[in-house]
């Protein structure tokens, strides 16, 4: 993914002494403020939103997984929706904010999944999961990490050519949002979302296959 989107504090850790069974009560004041700033037309605010949402989602994932029973997995859609509810609960959840938030959340979720995929690749070489990483790793991924990394790379190129199609991919592929949900979040007609997804998917597949046949032969 675009390195510019990479959050600065990607290794956000929970405060020391964080109780093992915790509830998520802290609102997201910073996120709320930034959303208001974006709404007010501050161009810098949008850039600052992604790393913040990234941090919040990771914290939320850890809290959720600490309280869940063993064997439970975490659905990114549920995570993103829950994060949104925390914000909207403050009364700032009007329509434009919601759109900004979901865009940022999709980007953040993509980053979280790519982090996991990279760690998994490292695991194959004998590393071990520890602490928060273990909880995050329970996010329910259904594609192999190789595919996630390939899509991540191909998506960077597509984002230049067709930013809106790339946003749809982030929401559909990395968050698992449905077409109506995406249509809602991006303020598009569902049919348009369908077409974005169809083109983006075919295009990404072609790019990945070309790069595969270039390096390791056809799939």
């Amino acid at each position, binding site marked *: 993914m675009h390195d510019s989107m990479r959050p600065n504090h990607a290794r956000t850790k929970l405060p020391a002494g964080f109780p093992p069974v915790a509830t998520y009560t802290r609102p997201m004041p910073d996120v709320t403020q930034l959303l208001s700033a974006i709404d007010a037309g501050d161009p810098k605010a949008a850039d600052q939103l992604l790393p913040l949402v990234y941090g919040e989602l990771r914290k939320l994932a850890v809290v959720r997984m600490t309280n869940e029973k*063993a064997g439970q997995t975490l659905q990114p859609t549920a995570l993103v929706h829950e994060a949104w509810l925390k914000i909207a609960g403050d009364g700032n959840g009007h329509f434009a904010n919601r759109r900004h938030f979901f865009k940022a959340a999709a980007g953040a979720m993509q980053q979280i999944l790519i982090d996991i995929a990279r760690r998994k690749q490292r695991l194959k070489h004998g590393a071990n999961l520890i602490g928060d990483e273990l909880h995050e790793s329970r*996010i329910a991924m259904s594609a192999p990490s190789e*595919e996630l990394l390939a*899509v991540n790379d191909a998506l960077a190129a597509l984002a230049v050519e067709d930013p809106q199609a790339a946003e749809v991919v982030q929401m559909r*592929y990395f968050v698992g949002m449905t077409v109506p949900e995406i249509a809602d979040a991006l303020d598009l007609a569902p049919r348009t979302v369908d*077409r974005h997804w169809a083109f983006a998917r*075919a295009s990404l597949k072609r790019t990945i296959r070309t790069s595969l046949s270039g390096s390791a032969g056809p799939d």
Partner: protein
Amino acid sequence: MTEREIFLEALEMTTPEARAAYLQSACSGDVALRHGVEELLREHFSNDSLIAGPAVEAERSAAEAGVEEAPAAMLDRYKLLEKIGEGGFGEVWMAEQREPIKRRVALKIIKPGMDSRQIVARFEAERQALAMMDHANIAKVFDAGRTDSGRPYFVMELVRGIKITEYCDQNQLPTRERLDLFIKVCHAIQHAHQKGIIHRDIKPSNILVTLHDGVAVPKVIDFGIAKATQQELTDKTVFTQFQQFIGTPAYISPEQAEMSGLDIDTRADIYSLGVLLYELLVGQTPFDAKEMMQGGLDALRQIIREKEPLRPSTKLNTLQGDARTTAGKRRQTDVGKLVHQLQGDLDWIVMKCLEKDRTRRYETANSLASDVQRHLSNEAVLARPPSAAYRLQKAWQRNKLVFTAGSVVAVALVAGIGVSTWQAVVATQARGVAVHAQAKAESSQQKAETEQQRADAQARKASESEQRSRRLLYASDMNLAQQALKVKRPLYGSGRARVRQPGPLRFHANR
């Protein structure tokens, strides 16, 4: 028009012919453009796994999930009758097949909304796994298909049974019969292993017991998370995600608990079989499932990886109160006897299955079954390095008749030897006495002879001394006569001198 626009427009065409015609006109001789669009279309319609859907599993509400299957609904040639089971992602229906033969079958179908790529792949894997196997103790697959909404299903043998542990308890099966059932389960698992399939979720609810002509037949079901060891089961990759906690906590092997997902082999099933055997024998699993779940995932993994389970007999002995009475009653005996039954062989067999280090477990399900069989026929089990005394004990249990006959012969021999020895001793003693007596007799005879000789010698001596005295007397007589002659006075007359002549002379007169 751009590549994107032509592509999206082409998607609107309903037939391949219409699409080809549209491309022909839209690209109007631009070969590169047409090639690009054709590539996109090929990617769009290809059925491979690449970006087949979202990379994540999504939450789905019932409304989005689509229609539920309902009783009496027809699915191809199967009429759904009743939902008989429900798992994480699948449902099992009892259904009626109409043709070519009319029979009741079990129809397993992916739950509405759960048809994500991974689940479909896993589902497909189960169908393939089952189809590869042909064993009396494994449910058979008859057919497969897809619903109108595209959800895959497969049709298999309807197993009307209950959990193996429930069956055993309800029928109060004694240990021996439980072991017989268990051996059959091992054979089924062995069959799967030979086909290159690891079950990975062996537990009582996946082993149903049905009655065939009054004979209990265990059937292994639910190869839902079974994994191919050798070849790909499907053309779709079965994604074994390391973060997915696959299996059931009480039954999973330490290596499964590791969740590395990379290195599970048939010995994981041996571990689970050991847990099953444990439960059949004791009525409880080695570790309590609830207790295991309390500490969360890490604690669970630690228990499975590090904690040594109690031996089955020890565990039984720790049971208190009702649990204790029930455990005995369910096996038609009392706990004391049961503990005695388990001590030794069965303890060893179970503990060998539950080894944390899989290289120390049984290599195959068959060798486990054989060991249980050995126990049943009182042969030495492999689970224990045999001592001479143990083997002898086993040999004794095995060949009681031979041993008894042998013992009788041995006793007879010993008795015979004893009696004859005693007799010999008695005889020897008698002989000793006799000899002694004889010796005594001889010695007294000798004495007598000596006495006789001595007496003879005395007699001889006596006669000699008599002779001598006679001679002396004669000599003195003769002296007297001479002296008388000299004094001229005859003392006794001449005649008297003649009278006192000595007797016949044996010695010289002068001596």
